[in-house]
């Protein structure tokens, strides 16, 4: 265990120097791209927001089931089969048919080529499941159908969330899928999380619909309240004249005549045509502008608007007009999003945490170094040099991978400092014991290293196991802890078996004959 070839010595020195260089790139700026790497600071250290959004797919499923009821009726009407008692039961449909058509219905739904019920060969499953009970058919989304639907609404929502966040222009946002109905948003260095939260919390489903005064409207009507409760609730037709999909652009403006903040919008070709037609036939009527089920305003149409552009007024402040314009530009979410977890740290607290972490690291480090030096003198010095290099290795590896350092991560580094000496202590204590029976320093040192090896490996493997579990189970900051703790084990083993051993060997060879070496 005591022999080091020249090649090995040089390698150890080079590796140590390399990591010192890499670790120091966190403090200095290098021209070289490879060296110019930095450890990322976690949100808890640099400040920022972590938001976990969950997509509420229930309205989407209900909407699809509604649409499905129409398709089913039309599909079988073409085949001269009359669908009776068609009912929507939330996320389920029920209907019945004449006895002699029953098999046809089942065959249609279970046909792999079915237009009505797409088949996913990869999962060997249809989109819809059909069951029959007492002559009544029940149709609902199959497990795979739900998965497909969730995945596609997650894709759409992710795109909209990205657009909204990009519009605000925060630096380096991290937007990721989680499961099939969640989106994780990490926004470093954000100063106003409330604004983002309110922007992400809105579906931004915009519709233009006429205000009617009878519920006998052929499309049906619903009673909606005003966003600012300024007026009585109004009865609004369910017929949609225009929706947010027809918008090309939206901008906040100051109306020079009324001195009011408004949102101006531009429509696409289809939208402009429809808007022109509706405004020409509906002069004198009130056109309600509805956002997420609330009326923003319901102006009376005075003239035909054929230009394909218009403006929305609704007692906006400049901020609220800017936000509405942003929401309209980036489009509507396919389904409402709920913020189910939020963690926001202000930049001050982040800086305080960095300072506290660094002070704790420095003090912990000094305490350990002094203790070890007092205890082991020369070998204490060797251990301490190893400990310093161990820190460089650890920080160097974090830097190379541009890993994310969190506050618990700093705690992991401090803990590594405390536990890293264990291996050297095990070796030195063993050597002391060996020296009791063995007068030859070289032999005693050699067997000290050999005999302590299994204990050291065992001890480190157990800690490593704990770190690995934490890494896979933990979230955010805790992951940072397991990362530094886990990497710390490898750097500790390297520094003990290569750096400390090398230094020990050099010292022991020079003092072969000395008694009471350790």
């Amino acid at each position, binding site marked *: 265990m005591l022999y080091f070839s020249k090649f090995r010595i040089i390698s150890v020195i080079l590796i140590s120097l390399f990591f010192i260089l890499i670790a120091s790139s966190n403090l200095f700026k290098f021209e070289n791209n490879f060296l110019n790497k930095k450890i990322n600071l976690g949100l*808890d250290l640099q400040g920022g927001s972590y938001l976990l959004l*969950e997509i509420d797919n229930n309205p989407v499923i209900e909407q699809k089931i509604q649409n499905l009821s129409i398709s089913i009726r039309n599909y079988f009407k073409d085949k001269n089969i009359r669908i009776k008692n068609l009912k929507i039961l939330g996320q389920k449909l029920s209907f019945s048919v004449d006895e002699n058509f029953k098999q046809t219905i089942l065959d249609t739904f279970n046909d792999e080529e079915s237009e009505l019920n797409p088949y996913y060969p990869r999962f060997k499953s249809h989109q819809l499941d059909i069951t029959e009970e007492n002559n009544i058919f029940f149709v609902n989304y199959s497990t795979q159908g739900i998965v497909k639907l969730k995945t596609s609404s997650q894709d759409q929502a992710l795109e909209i969330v990205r657009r909204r966040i990009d519009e605000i222009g925060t630096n380096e946002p991290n937007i990721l899928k989680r499961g099939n109905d969640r989106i994780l948003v990490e926004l470093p260095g954000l100063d106003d999380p*409330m604004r983002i939260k309110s922007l992400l919390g809105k579906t931004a489903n915009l519709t233009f619909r006429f205000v009617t005064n009878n519920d006998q409207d052929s499309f049906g009507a619903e009673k909606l309240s005003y966003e600012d409760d300024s007026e009585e609730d109004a009865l609004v037709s369910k017929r949609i004249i225009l929706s947010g999909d027809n918008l090309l652009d939206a901008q906040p403006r100051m109306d020079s005549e009324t001195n009011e903040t408004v949102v101006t919008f531009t429509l696409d070709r289809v939208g402009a045509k429809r808007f022109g037609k509706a405004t020409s036939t509906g002069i004198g009527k009130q056109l309600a502008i509805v956002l997420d089920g609330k009326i923003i305003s319901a102006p009376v149409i005075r003239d035909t608007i054929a230009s394909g552009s218009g403006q929305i007024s609704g007692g906006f402040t400049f901020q609220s007009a800017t936000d509405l314009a942003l929401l309209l530009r980036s489009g509507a979410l396919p389904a409402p999003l*709920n*913020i*189910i*977890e*939020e*963690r*926001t*740290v*202000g930049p*001050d*607290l982040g800086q*305080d*945490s960095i300072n*506290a*972490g660094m*002070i*704790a690291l420095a*003090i*912990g480090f000094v*305490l*350990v170094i002094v*203790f070890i030096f007092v*205890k082991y003198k020369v070998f204490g010095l060797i251990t301490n040099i190893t400990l310093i290099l161990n820190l460089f290795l650890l920080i160097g590896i974090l830097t190379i991978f541009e890993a994310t350092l969190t*506050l*618990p991560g*700093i*705690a992991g580094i*401090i*803990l590594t*400092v*405390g*536990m890293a*000496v*264990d291996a050297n*202590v*095990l070796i030195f*204590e063993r050597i002391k014991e060996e020296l009791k029976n063995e007068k030859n320093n070289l032999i005693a040192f050699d067997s000290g290293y050999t005999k302590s090896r299994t*204990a050291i490996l*065992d*001890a*480190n493997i*157990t*800690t*490593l*196991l*704990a*770190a690995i*579990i*934490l890494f896979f*189970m*933990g*979230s955010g*900051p*805790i992951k940072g*802890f*397991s990362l530094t*703790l886990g990497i710390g084990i490898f750097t500790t083993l390297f520094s003990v078996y290569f750096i400390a051993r090398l230094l020990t060997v050099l010292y022991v060879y020079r003092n072969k004959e000395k008694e009471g070496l350790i």
Partner: protein
Amino acid sequence: MIAFNKYYNQFNILSISLVVISLFLLTFKGLNFGIDFKGGTLIELRSTDSKINVSSLRDNLNSMNLGDVSVKNFGNETDFLIKFEINNNKNIIEEIKSNLDKSFGNTFDFRRVENVGPKVSAELLKSGVIAIVVALTLMLIYIWIRFEWQFSLGAILALFHDVLVTLGLFSLLGLEINLSIIAAVLTIVGYSMNDTVVIFDRVRENLRKYSDIKIYDLTNISINETLSRTLITSITTLLALLSIFFFGGEILKGFSLAMIFGVIFGTYSSIYIANTVLVRLRVSQKTVLREDENS
């Protein structure tokens, strides 16, 4: 040489009582779960007005019908930690902000806001429990591969003791259990195992070396031989942890405290639980020799 073995019985009784008391506390008093596991909202505030104190802040928040609100100083006089239960109002933070600004003027800086919904907290609790169970299982498997079953049993009993007593102490003191405590518990598991394994390694070595010494004395020899290592490592680890506890900021207090308890219990248990199990199971030279023949 210190005669650790003279006190095996006394300390076993002590440990069993501690475990029983801890189980009792965990069952009847329970743990003080933080918002990570219970759901709810946490706000850390810093005030620029030193006249504002906990009770004036509490009175103000109580008027908002937030349910069970807890208000505490956090680290110093001008920092406050507010916690309340799950609230369905999406704009609750904004409302609190405007309410505080109205009552106290614009003196508060919202330094940290955490909001955990019921679904997420249930998932976090589940994954925390799974993490600890998986960790204990992996340790069991590892030790079972490395040592004879008597040793495995000793190490695992020591682990359970450390985890239970640490949690019992948290229950007794009413300290908060959050995500970082799970991390601390897992690290304690690793540390306690580490300490036990080092002594066991020596016990096994000595079993082969001294064929005429009974396990009762043999464990004592092994404990003494590894004692200085056990103490030095515990001391350096504790030095690092104390440094985190006193200087690492309020957020790491609970984490470092759990670890400090854990390291102390872990050191104690590897001497007084792990080894006494070997003695009670009458481990002898045969135990290790049989294993050697098999392999």
